[in-house]
């Protein structure tokens, strides 16, 4: 709705332009998807008299990645061994443990909680996949983290992805009272990523609760003293050691850049193929050479 320049409070890179076109496309598809019924699957007949090609192409671009279980191949970005080397499994002492983190804890070694990396790997794969899809659909992503040691790193990560970051004092109504604080007609983030779920006084960050209020999904790194209830895609892991946070930032950055590159590739491909190539399936793309990208990541399935 509003270009990045008129959003003063959110620290942004402005690399990724946000034209009005995708928002209009998204509003067009749900109208088609629900022809008066409860089915949310995409229907065949468009209600509006727009050129059929553009709708089908946009539909193909948006619906195709959802059919693969790992369209962006995020599994290859990490392994349990790499998580262990980055000290992601180290939690706080047993006295700091939060009750709801108990299912994610493997055990306690001499009083220090050790996080179960098998579960972390599963959660991380889901979270990265979700993040990639949101970035693919040109959603706004906001990185939040209140640990001062890593605030610069988080801001540079956001800049490198072309997304936004907020690592300073979070004002009360930033999400819930956005028209007043940020100006009228401001588009709120479509995904909030927490590198630290707690603020500087070890209480849950206000944005966790506010995102749940404003129907914004969240991805968050939850340590053993955090509450993972309200976070949509929690990633149980260490949020205090530098190697661990560096690993997470690197993973998030790679995933988002990969997703955006994929989107550029798909659009270019469909533009090239034109109206005759609308029947092309996902596997056809694997055979075609990569367009406009340095290297094409291996297709999902």
């Amino acid at each position, binding site marked *: 709705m509003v270009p990045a320049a008129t959003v003063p409070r959110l620290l942004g890179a402005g690399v990724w332009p946000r034209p009005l076109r995708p928002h209009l496309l998204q509003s067009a598809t749900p109208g088609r998807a629900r022809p008066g019924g409860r089915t949310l699957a995409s229907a065949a007949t468009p209600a509006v008299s727009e050129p059929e090609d553009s709708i089908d192409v946009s539909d193909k671009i948006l619906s195709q990645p959802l059919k693969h279980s790992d369209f962006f191949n995020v599994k290859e970005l990490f392994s349990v061994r790499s998580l262990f080397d980055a000290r992601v499994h180290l939690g706080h002492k047993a006295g700091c443990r939060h009750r*709801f983190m108990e299912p994610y804890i493997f055990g306690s070694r001499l009083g220090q909680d050790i996080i179960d990396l098998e579960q972390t790997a599963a959660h991380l794969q889901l979270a990265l996949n979700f993040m990639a899809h949101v970035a693919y659909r040109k959603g706004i992503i906001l990185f939040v983290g209140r640990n001062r040691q890593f605030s610069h790193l988080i801001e540079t990560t956001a800049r490198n992805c072309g997304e936004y970051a907020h690592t300073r004092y979070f004002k009360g109504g930033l999400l819930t009272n956005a028209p007043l604080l940020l100006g009228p007609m401001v588009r709120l983030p479509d995904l909030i990523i927490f590198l630290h779920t707690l603020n500087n006084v070890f209480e849950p960050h206000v944005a966790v609760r506010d995102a749940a209020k404003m129907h914004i999904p969240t991805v968050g790194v939850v340590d053993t003293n955090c509450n993972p209830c309200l976070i949509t895609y929690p990633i149980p892991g260490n949020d205090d050691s530098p190697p661990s946070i560096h690993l997470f930032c690197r993973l998030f950055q790679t995933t988002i850049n990969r997703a955006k590159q994929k989107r550029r590739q798909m659009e270019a491909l469909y533009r090239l193929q034109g109206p005759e190539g609308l029947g092309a399936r996902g596997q056809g793309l694997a055979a075609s050479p990569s367009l406009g990208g340095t290297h094409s990541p291996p297709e999902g399935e």
Partner: protein
Amino acid sequence: MARSRLETVGSVFSRTRDLIRAGVLNEKPLWFDIYNAFPPLREPVFRRPRLRYGKAKAAIQDILYPEDRIRAKFYSAYGSGQKAFDLFNPNFKSTCQQFVEKYIELQKLGETDEEKLFVETGKALLAAGVILRRVEARTQKEGGHVSWESEPTGVKPQTVLEKNQPLQEVPQDQHLETSEEQPKGLSPP
């Protein structure tokens, strides 16, 4: 855009889905299809954190290895290792770790008596490296204080004092006397 700000009622997804079904929310949000296709392992519903009362305890096990027994004996006999732990090196082997590995090796050869194994391992390590001679000297010093060495309160001041012994003998003797008296009073009859 219509929203219900009830974060304690259901998950973000259930509320959005129901608003769409009711016709209140007109456009599907960007993330809706993605959540539908790839839901999380646990639906993010709010739960009130309740404290545990009485004897209820968390079901988290302690992580202990059979080598921990050997490590406990090593540290009670020799104190903390002479070589500082180099945590930057992932393949680092401390004195204690070398001891434990030697012990297990000798155990596999057929020995069963723990005391014998302990002494054998000590000798084997002596033969292996130079650093271990100091280990032997420490056991001579601490041989008399083994009974109350194992108590956690007694260990720290003891090791600090012993290191400073060659430097300042007179005041340290007084300290030694007082610290000897305290643990003797604490040790069980």
